[in-house]
């Protein structure tokens, strides 16, 4: 069964959730690599991963962050933000 972009997005979201629990940040390329490793046989390619990331960010489920490198994280309050 070939995976859909939505399914890839869900799998990516799960990866980010798990990483967050371990205090780890993931870059878009980390997610793409993880998806390719796990699901390449199910037809997942880089282009689909790119679309999945776009869906995740456009829908607000994940946000880009920058701390010396660009990451994808669960939306959260900015550490440096003032009240």
């Amino acid at each position, binding site marked *: 069964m070939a995976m859909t972009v939505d399914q890839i997005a869900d799998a990516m979201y799960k990866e980010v959730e798990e990483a967050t629990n371990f205090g780890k940040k993931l*870059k878009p*390329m980390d997610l793409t690599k993880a998806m390719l490793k796990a699901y390449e046989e199910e037809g997942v390619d880089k282009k689909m991963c790119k679309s999945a990331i776009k869906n995740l960010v456009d829908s607000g489920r994940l946000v*880009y962050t*920058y701390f010396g*490198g*660009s990451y994808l994280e669960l939306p959260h309050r*900015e550490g*440096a933000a*003032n*009240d």
Partner: protein
Amino acid sequence: MPKEYKTPKLDELEKGPWPSFVKEIKLAAKKSEMSNDLLGQLEQSYNEKLGHWKHGGIVGVMGYGGGVIGRYSDLPDKYPSVSHFHTIRVNQPSGWFYTSDALRTICDIWEKHGSGLTNMHGSTGDMVFLGTTTDHLEPVFKDLTEAGWDLGGSGSDMRTPSCCVGPGRCEWACYDTLQRCYDITMRYQDELHRPAFPYKWKFKFAGCPNDCVASIARADISVIGTWKDDIRVDADQVKTYADEGLDIFNDVVLNCPAKCMRYDGEKKEISIDNKDCRRCMHCINVMPKALRPGVEQGATILIGAKAPIVEGALLSSVLIPFLDIDDEEEFEAFCDLIEEMQDVWCEEGKNRERVGEFIQRVGMGNFLEAVGVEPIPEMVAYPRDNPYVFYEDFYEDEDE
């Protein structure tokens, strides 16, 4: 009533003949509480010799991972209006050409949504809007895009490409820098707005080897105009320069790095051995009416420049000695190569590793192999002078 800050230190910088940034901040402070608090905080920095900004990492506009740099005061109680003071990068038009109307639109948008302070321009080339709050980010983005503007890059993405004035106003432009800068910017909008690389990825387009955009020092991909055929010489103009007192022998000929020029002082004639010419531009710079680049024009593509962080500064080095980048087919091939390089660098690059550092780490030879480019002598200043060669293939005993 806005607070009135006493700024004796900054006031010192209103004096003197060079235009004053303090005057600009004060001008903006008349209309903007933010700029007023900026003035107060900056005076405190001048007193303490210490900056007072915190770096944010999350704020941005929906869907983009670049274009907004989060900034917060570390003295929010004292300077509440700069508690949030984010930067917005707005992608400049090629060559920084504007009409007055376009600039007024930009100003109106920024008056409505931010401090009224800008940089024209930031070092990378963007228009920079200095200082707004998180809740203004979406509205300012909406107003900008409706007026036909978009954000530039930041973070680990393609940074806003920039170019020199090129064929718009320069006789030395050896390809259409304005157009190719625009083409690359438009083709890679996704890469510009959604960071997917190990680190920043910069493109700069210079029309000739004078490199007015400093591409060789700053761009991961430096595109520098050059030519293949002979320098065009207008013999009458050479004579005119001589008659007007130019010391052609000392100032032009002796400064030629290739020693490929001769000057006959009696006849007032220049001769050039073009096969040895290094396309340095010196003679053309000195005698623009008499000498011009040849007509078979294109660009040299170089790769890998960067500032010191992390592993040390690098200048770009030659990847393709000559490419007719104005030709659509060759331009497509150039884009294919860019994408190939992106893939290799994304696959193997470490966080915050620029492509130049990546090449240093894996070896230029291996990099070339991975992206399918043949090694050629133009790529090196000289071949290696150490014998520590890595061979992947060698003869086994039975091959002998």
